[in-house]
């Protein structure tokens, strides 16, 4: 045993040597060291390895058993190994394991990569088709998926700015005739007394309320939102002020920029709302800031007065001066569920004989929207597009599979004669399979990279586009029966398309496409290897 004299106190095989052997077995996937035995009487450095030198080149693959120590096994890979220098290793480097070391063997096989690259560059046109097909599949899959994700993201955008965790609304009836100030049927009046009760619920951080009205005047329709300028909602709207100042008195009003432009309204002009005159103290631009945007913003008091004085509204449902019709509750993030369930017990259930609103909801029933409920409501709308994308992806995948198999088999089967020659000069089935596998892997990886590059370009371009999102009507502040302006029926907000490159998905695509092409190649290899060298040579 070489080097035995170096160790004065032999350590017996212990946990360390077990661990070394465990690691070696993992590393040794080629089973060059196929038996690692522990001899309890020897030190770690003298662990005996039975090394099977897989004679890769030799015809009969003879099995040699050579006994070397772990130390010498690894030391010989070092340049100018001390072991060789001191003659510990009697045989020259080439006959020992270094030649058969998995890593070295792998490098030896690199020539097959060269050969495959050669094939790819010499038959550019043919492989270009395969690469383009793979690229196209990758682009379609990645882009479709990103589109799907982006649509979902986009659908949430209008609600991103609702900072309150919970929104309370109540269903109501539509007034008999449309004149004066009325409440939309999704925003029936809520008793003002409810607000202090909500304030007592544990976990509620802030409450903001508003009164949203549709004002039908003789020749115009306006959406009017009454807010408290000092609460979170009012502050948000106020932050959009672009001209003038916030209302100083109950007879002041702000007007939305778009509405002002449409109707040629200027600062300090008088605006008549259901018989009451307001002075335009400022212009705001809330685009993209709030789901509940309006045409005109006034003090909560003023809107409550408008509602209180509206005969039409009072006839539909009794309205008190302190009533509102929308409540925003900012709850503690961790307590949203508890607050929601407390709210549900707090609000009165609808009368047993309650009728139904024009949209089939029970009159008087409260709607408590939480972030989750918004999401589910929205995602149900986008479920269709989701399924569509799934179906499209599947169609792409199946179509691609067919095209890929066809173009791959074409390029490979065209080379039957070549494979026949290879067999004739001594390529085994596995040599040919390895060759076409490497070629296919190269094509797949190149095609994938092309596909990813194109997807990035496509996604980058798409990210520059805008997307218009229709807000579900029941969350819309627009009257659904007001048909004079079709744009008002399905209010639309425009955002930059939130499309992103999904890195994880692209990895999944890579795996899928590798599996796909390897499957194809294994079927083809089976076919090619089924051909006899002689038959292939006769086929000319």
């Amino acid at each position: 045993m070489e080097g035995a004299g170096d160790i004065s106190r032999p350590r017996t095989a212990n946990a360390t040597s077990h661990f070394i052997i465990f690691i070696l077995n993992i590393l040794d996937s080629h089973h060059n060291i196929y038996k690692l035995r522990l001899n309890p009487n020897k030190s770690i450095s003298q662990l005996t390895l039975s090394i099977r030198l897989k004679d890769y080149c030799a015809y009969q693959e003879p099995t040699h058993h050579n006994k070397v120590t772990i130390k010498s096994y690894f030391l010989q890979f070092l340049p100018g190994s001390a072991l060789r220098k001191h003659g510990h290793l009697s045989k020259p480097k080439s006959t020992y394991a270094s030649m058969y070391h998995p890593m070295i063997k792998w490098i030896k096989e690199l020539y097959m990569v060269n050969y495959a690259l050669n094939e790819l560059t010499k038959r550019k046109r043919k492989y270009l088709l395969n690469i383009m097909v793979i690229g196209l599949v990758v682009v379609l899959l990645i882009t479709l998926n990103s589109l799907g994700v982006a649509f979902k993201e986009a659908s949430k955008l209008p609600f991103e700015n609702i900072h309150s965790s919970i929104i309370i609304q109540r269903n109501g009836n539509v007034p008999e005739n449309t004149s004066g100030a009325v409440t939309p049927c999704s925003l029936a009046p809520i008793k003002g007394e409810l607000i202090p009760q909500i304030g007592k619920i544990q976990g509620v951080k802030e409450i903001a309320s508003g009164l949203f009205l549709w004002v039908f005047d003789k020749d115009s329709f306006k959406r009017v939102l009454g807010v408290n300028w000092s609460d979170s909602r009012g502050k948000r709207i106020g932050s959009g002020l672009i001209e003038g100042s916030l209302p100083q008195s109950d007879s002041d009003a702000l007007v939305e920029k778009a509405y002002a432009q449409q109707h040629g309204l200027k600062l300090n002009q008088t605006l008549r709302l259901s018989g009451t005159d307001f002075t335009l103290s400022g212009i705001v631009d809330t685009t993209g800031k709030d789901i509940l945007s309006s045409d005109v913003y006034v003090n909560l008091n003023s809107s409550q007065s408008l509602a209180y004085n509206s005969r039409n509204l009072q006839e539909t449902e009794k309205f008190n001066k302190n009533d509102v019709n929308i409540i925003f509750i900012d709850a503690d993030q961790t307590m949203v569920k508890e607050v929601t369930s407390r709210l549900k017990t707090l609000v009165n259930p609808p009368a047993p004989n309650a009728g139904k609103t024009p949209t089939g909801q029970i009159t008087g029933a409260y709607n408590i929207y939480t972030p989750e409920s918004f999401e589910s409501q929205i995602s149900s709308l986008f479920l269709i597009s989701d399924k569509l994308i799934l179906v499209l992806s599947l169609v792409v995948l199946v179509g691609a599979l067919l095209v890929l198999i066809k173009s791959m088999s074409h390029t490979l089967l065209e080379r039957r004669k070549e494979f026949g020659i290879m067999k004739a000069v001594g390529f085994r089935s596995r040599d040919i399979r390895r060759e076409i596998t490497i070629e296919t892997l190269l094509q797949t990886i190149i095609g994938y990279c092309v596909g990813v590059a194109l997807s990035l370009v496509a996604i980058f371009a798409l990210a520059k586009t805008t997307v218009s999102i229709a807000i579900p009507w029941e969350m819309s502040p627009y009257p659904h029966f007001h048909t004079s302006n079709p744009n008002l029926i399905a209010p639309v907000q425009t955002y930059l398309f939130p499309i992103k490159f999904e890195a994880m998905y692209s990895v999944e695509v890579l795996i899928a496409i590798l599996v796909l092409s390897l499957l194809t190649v294994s079927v083809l290899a089976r076919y090619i290897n089924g051909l006899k060298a002689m038959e292939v040579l006769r086929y000319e």
Partner: protein
Amino acid sequence: MNKIIVARDLSKTLGSVKAVNSVSLDVNEGDFLVIQGSSGSGKTTLLSLLSGLDKADAGEIKFGSEDITSMNEDDLALFRRKNVGIVFQSYNLIPTLNVLENIALPLFPEGGSKEKMFERAKAAAESVGLGHRLDHYPNELSGGEQQRVGLARALINNPKVIFADEPTGNLDTETGQKVMNLFKSLNKEKGMTIVMVTHDDGLAKEADRLIKIKDGVVINE
């Protein structure tokens, strides 16, 4: 003389034709054996059996100490790589590989250093007089040059026997003679065993040993 191939009662049916019918023959080390027969006589089939390209339906071939009739396809491929070189009438070069790579083709599956591989291929190319055309592609070569590439490829693994199937069949007389001279010098100077198949009487005269075959049966020896 050492017998390198001992074939006994070889039979092979192709379709409904008995291409080789109970043929027995020996090949000695250093032989220049020509198997002559007309088209369809079964000579190429016999060559494919002897060289391990195809498997016989019946009979036995001992190549050295190995029984190649009992080998499977992969074993046969390795056997061919190690022991025989085959030269074809239609050269059978790979169009996307240059001369050097075509010659080195049998070395590819073994892997190993690229430099060493091409060193050997270069030596083989030089031995057939192609040292100056190493980076040319088959379509840039004349028929005679292509056949010399084929021969160099057959020689690359230092085979025990070279099999040639009408190696001059696609060449004009003069070029054919040059290729023939190469085979002869290999046989005379290096003692290479050569088994050649031809229908040509002229080439048959060059042989040390001549076997005539007709309808799958040896008619003289």
